[in-house]
């Protein structure tokens, strides 16, 4: 008897889940995902019991609590590398709230595996990046670990309710981390970030409930719940009843979801929280914010918007691409005008996330793969950038781009790595950034109506090159600004955080198929759902 049968009595549902998503994989066999999600949480609890003065023990626990998920992530990577990313793996399904048919349903496929690996990696690195936090060490690391739990959960959850819970769990520690350990205007930034994202998640909640109440999974048995939160089942279009059959309502739901995720991505009109949040957040937090939190928006669109409302995905694909283009050009232009280095990198993140949107907007295999790869690459590259900005901030205590000058002579190694990061960011071939950008553009171009939009977006690479090199010149080249005579070179710890990321960027630059094959599997299943769900190519 199939393990699923003690959750669903309707054989059709089991068949649908098995064929499209789970394949023959055993369920509840390996609890690697739960471990990865809740070990940090456990760490947080342990930290709370450690006496306040013992800072090093707190840090040690934090390292272990993020180290274990990293090891597990390595195993996840190996499994996906050998078996490809088409089917859901490491699936766990337990009843959570039986009456409402809510399950603790966790699983990852080609789409979410890279994100899980990225979260584990950045989480581990950021612990070392926040080594010299002195104020409230216990609280900081406890909140950080809870944040990691939230993030990991979001990427593993396959139940809409569970997804939403993790989404909120991730939100709260972030608010405190920015609000307490931030820069001068930290309260304003923290509040703005929190309320903005919360407003988004309210919309998501509405859509979730609408989805819940308008699906009928035709379960047998007297008290069998008819509705479900199971994301995989919700993709089954002929289970949609009630308002989900009416075109305008589906469009409304799609737009609601889009706004919720657009705030997180961030997309053009909803992006103003990002520069403030980044400028005020401490180094490690802005690495996590840029490295992982921005991906939640795009991941949400991949996991929820596209498969659940595929016809809407196609109907509004041009819009998404246009938003992508605006993000690219507008983000790049704003970045050029910034004088605070962190704000500049924040706007560059907006521009880079624009590539993801363009790739996704195209709804072609190449574009989607490019978008997913760009999400991963942006995580590593911008992670490096923020770490580097943190390094200079700790020494010079200001981030004003014009305030430096000619540092390359004083700190050549630091200048070298910063140069490497800048070139990776502007998409120099030989580094991973270029591959994802190229794929997004190729994908974008394949769409019959996106030629002009993609052409204009390619202009983005010129603007990006301009502002990044201009900034590099202002900081590192030119005559040495002797105000920084006593500037020390980058130290071992900081190097330890940067080198692994650099290696990943180069390896993926030369051999992208390592991760692209993983993503390819997941994207194929997604594309089948979209084309099947949408019935016909609506454009």
């Amino acid at each position: 008897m199939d393990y699923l049968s003690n959750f669903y009595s309707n054989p059709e549902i089991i068949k649908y889940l098995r064929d499209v998503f789970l394949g023959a994989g055993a369920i509840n066999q390996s609890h690697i995902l739960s471990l990865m999600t809740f070990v940090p949480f456990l760490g947080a609890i342990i930290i709370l019991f450690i006496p306040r003065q013992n800072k090093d023990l707190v840090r040690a626990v934090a390292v272990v609590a993020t180290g274990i998920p990293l090891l597990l992530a390595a195993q996840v990577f190996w499994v996906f590398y050998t078996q490809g990313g088409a089917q859901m793996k490491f699936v766990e399904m337990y009843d959570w709230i039986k009456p409402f048919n809510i399950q603790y349903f966790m699983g990852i496929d080609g789409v979410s595996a890279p994100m899980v690996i990225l979260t584990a990696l950045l989480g581990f690195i950021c612990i070392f990046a926040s080594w010299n936090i002195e104020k409230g060490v216990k609280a900081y690391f406890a909140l950080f670990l809870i944040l990691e739990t939230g993030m990991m959960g979001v990427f593993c959850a396959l139940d809409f309710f569970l997804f939403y819970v993790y989404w909120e769990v991730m939100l709260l520690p972030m608010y405190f981390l920015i609000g307490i350990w931030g820069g001068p205007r930290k309260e304003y930034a923290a509040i703005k970030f929190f309320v903005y994202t919360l407003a988004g998640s309210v919309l998501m909640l509405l859509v979730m409930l609408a989805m819940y109440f308008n699906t009928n999974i035709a379960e047998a048995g007297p008290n069998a719940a008819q509705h479900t939160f199971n994301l995989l089942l919700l993709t089954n279009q002929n289970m949609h009843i009630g308002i989900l059959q009416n075109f305008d309502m589906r469009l409304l739901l799609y737009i609601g979801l889009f706004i919720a995720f657009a705030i997180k991505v961030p997309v053009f009109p909803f992006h103003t929280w990002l520069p403030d949040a980044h400028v005020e957040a401490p180094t490690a937090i802005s690495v996590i914010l840029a490295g992982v939190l921005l991906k939640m928006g795009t991941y949400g669109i991949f996991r929820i918007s596209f498969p659940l409302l595929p016809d809407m995905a196609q109907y509004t694909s041009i819009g998404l691409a246009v938003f992508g283009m605006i993000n690219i050009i507008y983000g790049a232009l704003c970045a050029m005008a910034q004088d605070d280095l962190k704000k500049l990198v924040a706007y560059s993140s907006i521009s880079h996330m624009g590539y993801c949107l363009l790739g996704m907007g195209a709804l072609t295999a190449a574009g989607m793969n490019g978008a997913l790869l760009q999400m991963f690459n942006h995580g590593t590259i911008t992670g490096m950038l923020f770490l580097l900005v943190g390094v200079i901030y700790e020494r010079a205590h200001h981030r004003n781009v014009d305030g430096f000058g000619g540092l390359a002579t004083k700190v050549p190694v630091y200048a070298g790595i910063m140069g490497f990061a800048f070139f990776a960011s502007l998409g120099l071939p030989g580094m991973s950034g270029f591959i994802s950008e190229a794929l997004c553009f190729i994908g974008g171009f394949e769409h019959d109506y996106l030629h002009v939009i993609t052409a204009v977006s390619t202009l983005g690479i010129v603007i990006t090159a301009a502002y990044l090199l201009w900034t590099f010149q202002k900081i590192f080249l030119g005559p040495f600004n002797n105000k920084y005579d006593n500037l020390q070179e980058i130290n071992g710890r900081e190097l330890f955080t940067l080198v692994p990321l650099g290696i990943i960027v180069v390896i993926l630059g030369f051999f992208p198929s390592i991760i692209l094959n993983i993503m390819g599997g997941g994207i194929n299943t997604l594309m089948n759902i979209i084309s099947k769900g949408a019935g016909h190519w609506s454009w």
Partner: protein
Amino acid sequence: MLGIDFLGSQFWPLLILLCPLAAFVVQIFIGRFLPRKGDWVSLAAIGISLLISVACFAQVLIKKDPHFTAGFPSYQWLTAGMFTIKMGILFDNITAIMLVVVTLVSFLVHLYSVGYMHGDIRYSRFFAYLSLFSFSMIGLVLSNNLLSLYIFWELVGVSSYLLIGFWFEKVSAANACKKAFVTNRVGDFGFFLGILLIIFFLGKTEYGEVFNALKMSRPVDFTEGWLTFAGVCLFMGAVGKSAQFPLHVWLPDAMEGPTPVSALIHAATMVAAGVYMVTRLYPVFTPDALLVIAYVGGFTAIFAATIALVQNDIKRVLAYSTVSQLGYMVMGLGVGGYVAGFYHLWTHAFFKALLFLCSGSVIHALHSQDLRDMGGLWKKMPITFVAMTIGTLAISGFPPYFVSGFYSKDGILGATLALVMERPQHFVLAIFGFLGAAFTAFYMFRLIYMTFTGHPRDEHKYEHAHESPWTMTVPLMVLAVLSICSAGFFSGSEWFGDYVQKPESAVVMAHVPAGAHEAVAGSEAVHEGGHSTEHAAHQYAVILSILIVFISITLATLTYYHKFKKISAEKIAERLKPVYNLLYNKYYIDEIYEKFIIRPVVRFTKLCSRFDSGVIDGAVNGTAKATVFAAFATGQHDLKVIDGAVNGVAQTVIAAGKGAGMMQTGRIKNYFAWAVGGMVCILGLIYLLLLRR
């Protein structure tokens, strides 16, 4: 050596490619700690590559088969959905030739920089960058598909950025390297757009597949117009990289880099990448695209030549001469002289590298780049003088057979003339060609006279001028010999034709408007049957060019050679003041770009940023304030209305209470009366509810 079949397996070309990369990696990390700061590492690496390239070139020479391509398999690099990209190596005659050019010049420059860069604080890093550049250039030449060409294209761009900005303490160097990279990036934008178009329409990226797809199965919506547009986009990449007219501004500024860099990158190899790309993708270009290429090339030639006439900085003169010569090559290709254009690239690489290295040794000796400080150096630096003169003769196309420049330039002029004779409406190209040749001869001889002949203008510098060490003069001598014999050991340019033949265009003329058809037929006809017009064109070209060269040389000697000084340059400059200023300030192109492109963009970004923080943030903060006000309003409302209601109720209750209080008058009778009233009510109720049947 010949025993090993270098073209049998992929191993050897890969070795050529990976040696410089290995050197780069070694140098960048542990270069500083190696003996002699690791310059020998890079030298050895490029040496090995040179040897293998020469070996391969030799084997290609023996084969004497113009259509030889080594069939190496390409391995699957990347799959995204149905779209896969395969990478591999393409080795045919053109690659062999380019490889020799690149590795040879690179090797000589490596050797030369050992002397030139001696004592520089970042000595080892310089060689790391040189190795990186060699790796990317070799990669560019070896790649077999558009995307890998683009990848190495950008890598070459970044290595030129690093090398130009080597002495980044100088503000001008910092600006120059940024300018170079961004301008290249603008070109790359067009190039990438071209690639996207081809990938979209044909779905292929490998050269062979693209050409076959174009020839055989061209999708119907990939019309003429789109193909021309794609061709022009691709050519835009070449414009950026080879500093053609609109995007040439970065090359003169790139002279900020050390001279060996200029010699290697901005004379021989990198700038030639654009020309190489056009030769490699030649079948893709439609006749209209070729015309565009020809015009851009021609205009650049004449444009740069005029500026070079009046420059006083030795490296600037050579820089503009490079731009002009590149214009020639591009024009050559544009007009259909495929072999001539590519041949000019071959010869130009050597004599331009020679000229740059000579100027390098002069600068090294005098520590100044300004022509006005030089003069009469031929006594002090005989070897440099001899090498420089040979280079000048080569570049100006001096007629005696033993000088290479003459043949290649003559080939281009012949091809241009042939086209013009075919279609006279393009006569402008011929004027560009010949006038350019004249100016080239004039400014080169001007350069020679001002530096080496005549009496020294600056005694102090003249005193301690000295000949450069052997590491610098040996490369000069080698290059000098090559400038001469690269014309094929006195056999003219025929030998080159055996190896390089013009690929027939993959553009199938489905429905051809009269004009375009005839153009192609023209070049076809010229190629097969109508040998006579082409031959005739060559005859006229030879005569004309010799005539022009002699005239300009005599003019130059008359103005600059102290013995026969008749014309004084200063007087001419006075009389043609406006023209002189225009030329001296490089047609104010830089200023125009600054004013009309860079400044407005920066202003626009400021606007964007203010808009972003003002409007959108304003909107967000506005909503925040609105909600605060709404909260305040509800607070007030709550206070006034609802509280009021509650208080109202309280008042009524109190009033009722008072009213009720009146009952308590203290007089017994009132109590009794109320009691009786109560009794009456109760009895009434009993009656109503219970008893009424």
